[in-house]
């Protein structure tokens, strides 16, 4: 285990009934870095993040966060500790306004939120213009911004993101990745899942390849980008 890992996963196994979704994976997320997990459909990427977030209880294995075993803790405890998940498909609250969505992101906090709301509005000026609009009426890209902004409202140490580029136009995707880098520069560790492996590996300091529930390869983003088998399987070149 690396000593500077803020999050460390050991032999994580996740089952749904009889289906083995994650078959004993181990990986580290070093503090302050962007780490990406790439893999095909059904490889177990979402299951891994959902387990870390506390939505799913693992069958076995341990999740260590800043030296503390947080395996099997409930989602409220996990968010309060500083781990947040931007879920697959964004999952913003469609009937609530943009502002209310952001406030809900800070649900576990009791302090003043105005600085954080301004911080999110600085990152995403488009959200500020749409402060009073219902979340469901935003465009796909704006909804993704809202989902990221909402997650940031919890003042996370780690932000996990499940396929933020899903269904977005290339230009918007680039914007989202710029924000990921910006947020990371401001000190937030990022654990990113992507099918858009090219973009993810270019952005990440470190990457892992997940295949049918197992990690088959790891290394720096640049190393994986150059790897022939990764190219063949995930980059379509």
């Amino acid at each position, binding site marked *: 285990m690396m000593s500077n890992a803020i999050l460390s996963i050991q032999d994580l196994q996740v089952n749904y009934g009889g289906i083995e979704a994650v078959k004993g994976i181990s990986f580290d997320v070093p503090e302050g870095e962007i780490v990406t997990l790439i893999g095909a459909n059904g490889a177990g990427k979402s299951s891994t993040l959902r387990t870390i977030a506390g939505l799913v209880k693992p069958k076995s294995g341990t999740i260590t966060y800043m030296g503390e075993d947080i395996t099997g803790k409930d989602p409220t405890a996990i968010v309060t500790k500083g781990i947040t998940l931007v879920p697959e498909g964004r999952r913003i*609250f469609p009937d609530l306004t943009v502002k209310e969505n952001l406030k809900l992101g800070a649900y576990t906090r009791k302090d003043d939120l105005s600085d954080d709301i301004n911080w999110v509005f600085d990152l995403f000026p488009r959200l500020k213009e749409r402060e009073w609009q219902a979340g469901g009426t935003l465009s796909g890209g704006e909804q993704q911004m809202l989902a990221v902004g909402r997650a940031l409202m*919890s003042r996370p140490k780690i932000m996990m993101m499940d396929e933020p580029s899903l269904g977005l136009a290339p230009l918007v995707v680039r914007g989202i990745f710029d924000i990921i880098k910006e947020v990371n520069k401001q000190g937030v560790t990022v654990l990113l899942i992507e099918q858009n492996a090219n973009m993810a590996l270019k952005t990440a300091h470190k990457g892992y390849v997940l295949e049918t529930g197992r990690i088959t390869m790891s290394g720096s983003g640049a190393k994986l980008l150059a790897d022939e088998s990764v190219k063949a399987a995930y980059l379509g070149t």
Partner: protein
Amino acid sequence: MEFFISQILSGISVGGQYALIAIGYTMVYGILRLINFAHGDVFMVAGLMMIYLSASMPLYISVPVVLILTVLLGFLIERAAYKPLRSAPRMSVMISAIGVSYLLQNVALYVTGGQPTTYPAIPFISKPVNIFGVPTQWVTIITPVMVIILVVLLTMLINHTKVGMAMRAVAKDFEASQLMGIKINSIISITFIIGSFLAAVGSILYFTKYPTVVPTSGAMPGLKAFVAAVFGGIGSIPGAVIGAFIIGVCETIIKGTAFTVFSDAFTFALLIVILVVKPTGLFGERATDKV
């Protein structure tokens, strides 16, 4: 003319009582997509508790105690009968609700021995009063006023507080709410607590006008309130309230004609017509189900 005024007044009052029950149905449906069949029986139990408690303590104690016990009953029903089935198919939870409904009725039968019990006269609200020259009881006036006050308070809670925001979030998406750190079980409990509280208030107003309580006393008002909730668009609080007033007034008007025996059938006929014209009810949301 006097007859007409008296009909309208009494219709509004009945509607108000249905409204207080209907809010419980519609809120629980909104958050769990569950028709809580036991809700009408909770209303009946509140009536029975009032009879037994007021026999041994003054009203200024028994009224708050009944409110508290009813809230506790609603909370316990959810924890014992619905929470363990959170990830079960919706049909299983429905059956659990039907089970609780019969359990409450059977317990009521056991406790009362099947004898109709007489509701205590609550001073002031059961006093006679003349309105536009029509003799009635104070409860007739107090009911709609009380309903409006409670609905305004409830709407403020839902639209302008953190808990209310969490309730709206949980009603849409359990998982995303959990990711925000919302404890969904607490929010669901709060929903049952509010619903049961309003049903308890409704039972005091209702049984003051129809002062015998039997184990099936909750069934008809419960069903009417449920119809009101569907009529207004289930899940919508303003819908349930408006639906309840419409049903209350229509029903009382029919009861004043030669067709009085058809008043219940009329209620359902009205529901069917509305649902044919507008399948989601007056204020129902589009058929976007919970993800």
